[in-house]
């Protein structure tokens, strides 16, 4: 057990040095659950947690990819480097996917200040892929100043971005529904900022007003009151500077209020428990399948001689004794 920073794996050193090819390869390995990425991911963790991670979520077709492109342009003009992860859905039938978030990206091909990675959801629910958190963390450790994570077109319960992003932008467009929609639980609850995109369309004022009413009904327990920005990504763009300034205002609020640490603790505890649960689950599944005594347990449940709850108790109890 050497200190994490003194003996970094070669790939980790390459990523820190700005080698985008090694970064891309490592991302693939993380996505595929390839054990070769394990040491890199572990060793780079201490270097993450520096960049704001900005989530861009909202229903399909509201303009998330165009907004990401506009934000990338804005950030580059400010001299900031940007890592982007764009998630699109995988087919539940074939596992295939068409990843189209890149299509809106406009940047100079020789600009090393932007790294864009498309990612398929690979069966994960909640709006992001299982590996999105670790990949955004790799981009952070690679030294990008800002990380943008674009979710799949989200439904009302797709709130997993909250476990990854320090600031979540919920993007809507005019005529998505009446004000009752804004009262419903789920997606609208996680917004640190609301973005009414395509603000040049009729109905934009009404949409902004409905959201303002939602916000005045009560902010977050943290005391943050979500801001509402109207944007258009059609040239000449509208509201992009304001949107970014509001992201920065929220990031500053996180620091000033102590919410950043609170949020990090909440996110990381759920990550640790999730990883541990996967670990223990795999181990128990292995035992259930390989230990003859435990296989009989399963036979008993199948034959209705035993109920699943009692079998689970015994599975865990037996696991403890055999240690």
């Amino acid at each position, binding site marked *: 057990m050497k200190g994490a920073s003194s003996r970094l794996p070669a790939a980790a050193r390459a990523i820190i040095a700005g080698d985008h090819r090694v970064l891309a390869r490592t991302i*693939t390995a993380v*996505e595929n659950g390839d054990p070769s990425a394990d040491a890199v991911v572990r060793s780079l963790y201490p270097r993450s947690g520096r960049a704001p991670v900005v989530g861009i979520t909202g229903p399909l077709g509201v303009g998330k990819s165009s907004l990401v492109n506009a934000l990338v342009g804005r950030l580059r003009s400010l001299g900031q480097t940007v890592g982007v992860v764009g998630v699109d859905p*995988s087919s539940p039938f*074939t596992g295939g*996917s068409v990843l189209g978030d890149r299509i809106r990206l406009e940047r100079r*091909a020789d600009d090393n200040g932007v790294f864009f990675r498309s990612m398929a959801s690979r069966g994960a629910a909640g709006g992001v892929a299982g590996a999105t958190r670790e990949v955004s963390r790799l981009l952070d450790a690679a030294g990008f100043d800002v990380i943008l994570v674009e979710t799949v077109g989200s439904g009302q319960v797709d709130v997993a971005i909250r476990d990854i992003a320090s600031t979540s932008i919920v993007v809507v467009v005019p005529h998505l529904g009446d004000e009752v929609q804004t009262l419903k639980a789920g997606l609208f609850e996680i917004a640190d900022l609301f973005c009414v995109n395509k603000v040049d369309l009729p109905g934009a004022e009404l949409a902004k007003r409905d959201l303002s009413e939602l916000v005045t009904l009560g902010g977050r327990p943290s005391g943050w009151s979500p801001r509402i920005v109207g944007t258009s990504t059609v040239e000449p763009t509208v509201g992009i500077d304001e949107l970014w300034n509001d992201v920065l205002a929220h990031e500053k609020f996180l620091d000033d209020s102590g919410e950043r640490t609170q949020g990090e603790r909440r996110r990381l505890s759920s990550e640790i428990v999730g990883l541990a649960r996967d670990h223990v689950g795999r181990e128990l599944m292995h035992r259930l399948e390989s230990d003859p005594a435990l296989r009989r347990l399963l036979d008993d449940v199948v034959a209705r001689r035993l109920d699943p709850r009692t079998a689970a108790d015994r599975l865990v109890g037996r696991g403890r004794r055999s240690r």
Partner: protein
Amino acid sequence: MPMARAARKAPIRVLIAKPGLDGHDRGAKVVARALRDAGMEVIYAGLRQTPEEIVRAALEEDVDLIGLSILSGAHMALFPRVLALLKSQGGHPIPVFAGGIIPDEDARRLKKAGIRAIFGPGTSLEEIVATAQSLARHSA
């Protein structure tokens, strides 16, 4: 259980891009869809991509395969440029296949230059998918 198998095995990642200035992307979209249905992750980069943009996208996305579609007639200028840039980036070579309106004589020269397969009008999607799978398998 084809679904579980597809989820466990790492999917083939393929970049589909249109170099050049024509706006006819129906062919590229049909191929993207067919590769998706064959279980691949298709990064669709869209229209009017420069060779530099295509190569950068291929590296960032760490694809196993690149498919280029072109109908403008500029393939003799643009395809070799993509190949040259890929080569100059080092690393293991990413196989490139192409489709569009490409005369036989040009196709012969492009294949000699390193384009692995060229599909003209009327090629079946089955043939494109099978070729893509075999190219990706052998590049890994």
